[in-house]
């Protein structure tokens, strides 16, 4: 911390911490120090928790669909994928706690105001269903119960794939909270792309048509939701475009689009290309989750993203309150 005090000069909006390429973000801060604190979340743990949860949730839907439409290889591979993924997702979360035994306290209460509490219970219900579906399919034991478990997992799957977006949004992190309208759709699209990618990787050509369609749907949903979110976020959106988060989000866009389009074009004829597009879709989904994670981090680390939007909100409120006759209206931004 070497910058001089930033608090000299006039009272209203003046200087800022460091020079940026965006000149209109003038604001005051306390020595450029962040206002918000950053959790000790490891990117791979939390990014992985988001990614694997999505893969599992959407995967259970593909598994159920494949079971219903007599696509046995895809059904089995998706059931196994969902089980392994949800176990990995829970493991990532538990690993991030530092001491695994602490996870027990997660199930001490059920708090609707805490998406992490709701999510933990959701995982506790969904995990065994996904596991039962996979085991029954692999061993042929209790086929009826296996079908019920498959249906149950498919029913909870969409919730498993999207609740992590609420978990992220329900914080003061500007990039996450301000994007709460679109983030569940971004996650739903990314989850679909990941599950469809796994299906393209594992299912034979004669079974993979729904996966190709799903990949197109997931990629389109994610692209549309991301675009909408970024255009609505104002200056906070730059955290999705710059730095590490920006690189990850751009990689995600390219990988997901390429995977979905290549899969649609060639995945029905060429096994190798189908697998390759599946891998691209999976990689794209990983990039999306890590990108969202790092964008959130970036908005926590810079007071600009806390102060400027809140100032704008205050000014808008003041303007609305003193609409017709006030000569003391807040000055318009000089830029």
């Amino acid at each position, binding site marked *: 911390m070497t910058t001089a005090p930033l608090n000299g000069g006039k009272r209203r909006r003046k200087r800022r911490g460091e020079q940026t390429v965006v000149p209109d973000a003038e604001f005051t801060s306390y020595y450029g120090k962040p206002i918000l604190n950053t959790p000790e979340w490891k990117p791979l743990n939390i990014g992985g928790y988001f990614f694997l949860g999505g893969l599992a949730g959407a995967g259970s839907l593909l598994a159920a669909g494949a079971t219903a439409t007599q696509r046995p290889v895809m059904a089995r591979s998706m059931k196994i994928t969902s089980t392994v993924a949800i176990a990995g997702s829970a493991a990532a979360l538990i690993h991030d706690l530092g001491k695994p035994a602490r*996870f027990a306290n997660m199930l001490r209460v059920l*708090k609707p105001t805490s998406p992490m509490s709701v999510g933990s219970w959701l995982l506790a219900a969904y995990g065994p269903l996904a596991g039962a579906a996979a085991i029954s399919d692999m061993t042929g034991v209790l086929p009826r119960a296996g079908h019920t478990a498959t249906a149950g997992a498919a029913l909870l799957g969409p919730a498993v794939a999207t609740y992590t977006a609420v978990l992220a949004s329900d914080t003061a992190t500007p990039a996450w909270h301000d994007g709460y309208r679109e983030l569940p759709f971004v996650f739903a699209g990314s989850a679909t792309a990941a599950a469809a990618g796994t299906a393209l990787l594992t299912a034979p050509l004669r079974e993979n048509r729904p996966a190709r369609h799903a990949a197109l749907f997931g990629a389109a949903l994610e692209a549309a939701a991301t675009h909408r979110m970024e255009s609505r976020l104002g200056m906070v959106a730059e955290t999705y475009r710059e730095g590490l988060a920006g690189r990850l989000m751009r990689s995600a866009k390219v990988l997901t689009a390429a995977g979905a389009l290549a899969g649609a074009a060639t995945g029905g004829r060429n096994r190798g290309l189908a697998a390759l597009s599946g891998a691209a879709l999976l990689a794209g989904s990983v990039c999306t989750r890590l990108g969202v994670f790092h964008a959130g981090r970036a908005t926590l680390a810079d007071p600009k993203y*806390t102060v400027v939007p809140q100032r704008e909100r205050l000014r808008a409120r003041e303007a609305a309150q003193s609409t017709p006759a006030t000569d003391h209206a807040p000055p318009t931004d000089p830029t």
Partner: protein
Amino acid sequence: MTATVERVGFFTDTSVCIGCKACEVACKEWNAIPEDGMELTGMSYDNTQGLGASTWRHVAFIEQSKPVVPKTHQGRHQGEHQHQGDGSRNPQSEGAEDDADVFALAAQGSGSSELRWLMSSDVCKHCTHAACLDVCPTGSLFRTEFGTVVVQEDICNGCGYCVPACPYGVIEQRPDDGRAFKCTLCYDRLGESQTPACAKACPTESIQYGPLDELRERAAARVEELHRAGVPDARLYGHDPDDGVGGDGAFFLLLDEPEVYGLPPDPVVTTRDLPAMWKQAGAAALTLLGGLAAAFATSGKPKTTRSPFARRRL
């Protein structure tokens, strides 16, 4: 929330803070908080930098080239804030310090200094609508009978969710431990009808402890007094029960915009939007369900009957 006794809190009047950091020390001592860094930051006299897992009171120091009392008001009775102008002139004669800029500013003008030095002791706000408490998945964070917000260390599981939820950047995880820590408003002392350590140690009554209603009245009177004395910048922060967090249990009298002190100008409890968030997630989940159903509906049956296996079996 079931407050069985009157809700209590802090009113921190920064206009009389002298930056002695007795509150920081008393808090560390009483709560047995570990050391968390001994660096010299160059941020005026502030080497604590901000609230965190092991800093529950933090004194901010802000140097501004701006008089406490505007020129138009000088010469009038200025009340007890006068010492700030005088105090900054005194070291000039000693010449011991090596802060030329400060002295140059202090030497300017005849009546009052062009320099002002703001100090403010920051603390957990003990919000009426506390995001940390709302999002805590274990119930470790709870509302006490005094209306304060406290972490139970034996229940906290180190998930860290409360950390980004706090709109003020107060609560934090201890790196080596992982669990979250913050000001308890000296819950142990309150139980014994004792004043919290920081307020007890404050030599100027900048930190005032008491029933919240009483503090709010006192604060309103103090702002009026300062305005009359010619300090138009004086304003309350966190006192309004209609603000984004339902009002703070620990609120402040500031002499500049909140962000100058490292405080958010318009904090909002994140869970205010939680119903809308769940609604969006529900819509996204249905979209996912519909999209994948469509993916299967448009794919027809697989060509299993024509597969080589099927033929061979015949």
